[in-house]
């Protein structure tokens, strides 16, 4: 199963530009559900993005990119 990584509406409730500051793990890493995976910036606020599922992280949007909350910035592939 593949889960999209997006900025959830409970984290950002506007359509403003968000900057992707850091990816905590490398592409291909196995991450736990709920683990911090990225840091975001909205105006001067720094926000934490957590993994929506457990599995292999696939990064599709690089650091420093401007993103929107509904944009898919990576995926998590389930692993057995």
């Amino acid at each position, binding site marked *: 199963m593949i889960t999209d990584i997006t900025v959830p509406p409970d984290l950002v409730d506007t359509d403003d530009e968000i*900057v992707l*500051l*850091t*990816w*905590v*793990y*490398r*592409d*291909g*890493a*196995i*991450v736990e559900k709920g683990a911090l995976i990225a*840091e*975001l*910036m909205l*105006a*001067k606020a*720094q926000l934490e993005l957590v993994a929506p599922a457990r599995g*292999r*992280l696939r990064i599709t949007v690089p*650091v*420093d990119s401007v993103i929107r909350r509904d944009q898919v910035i990576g995926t998590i592939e389930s*692993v*057995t």
Partner: protein
Amino acid sequence: MEQHAEGATGAATKAQRTLTMARAGREAVIAEMRKDPNIFVIGEDVAKLGGVFGTTVGMAEEFGSQRVIDTPISETGFIGIATGAAMAGMRPIVEIAFVDFIGVCFNQIFNFAAKTHYMSGGRFKVPMTMMIGYGGGYNDAAQHSQCLIATLAHVPGIRIVTPADAHDAKGLMHTCLRDDNLTIWMVHKAIWGLGWLGTAIKTALSVVPEEEYTIPFGEARIWREGSDVTLVGYGISVHHSLQAAEQLAAEGISAEVVDLRTIVPLDRERIFQSVAKTGRLIVIDEDYTNCGVTAEVLAVIAERDPSVLKVPARRIANPDIPVPFSRPLENFCLPDAEKIVRAAKELVKK
């Protein structure tokens, strides 16, 4: 498809995390606070806001208002409170977001926190850690852009650490919090990893182990080995030096990058060894030049054996002017890779 070690066989090993300095330092504070109920955090905006630089995010929620304490704008007052609490057996952490405002509490720091252990004949310890941001480069003008590290380093009784990446930020914070003296953990704002100050310099982000570890005071770190010129710096100057070393390598000049990591105590041995090897020295510091850390580094060579220098040493530091607000003028007064490259080429040609 690229396979990383942790991914090849599922989750056999834990994936490595790349963290910002802010997060790495915070991780050390939280770990120590969970173990030791005597540790508390006090300062402006540390509870509700989570620190101007995000140093205390989430701590008020976890540890409560008795251990994460917002104060009025009264640095003398809360540093005095913390010093007294430390003498009585607590282990306070005091945040001063901008080092520029440390002047208002010099009496508490210099005459009480730094000297009580000595003056009480060792009967009272002051195990207190200050977290302080410093540095310019973001148009915040003369009162929010200073380093003032040499000012603090001048007074006996204070240990000063200046990590340059996330790994060292965590390790040095653990060391500070376990030390029984006044320690000051200082991070340059531009490498802290705060989005609103611009994206962090990539070399300041680093892989940070989940487990606790300490880094001893007084151990410089060699980031890059070289044979033609030694670049000595700390904090953001390490990253400027790394960029310069990369450019110099393309021109056939081999630069060694030495990160002081702790200003007090200073790793005089490692500074000397590197300069004895390369014969050329450039010291880089965003702080003021006059009576600064750069002068102390040059004194190491002058006192031990100045004959190791093939050419006179150079200093690249603030030319003793208030940090200008104007971006072009500010850039003129701050060190950068270009200035280091220029100086290194001149030294090697001589």
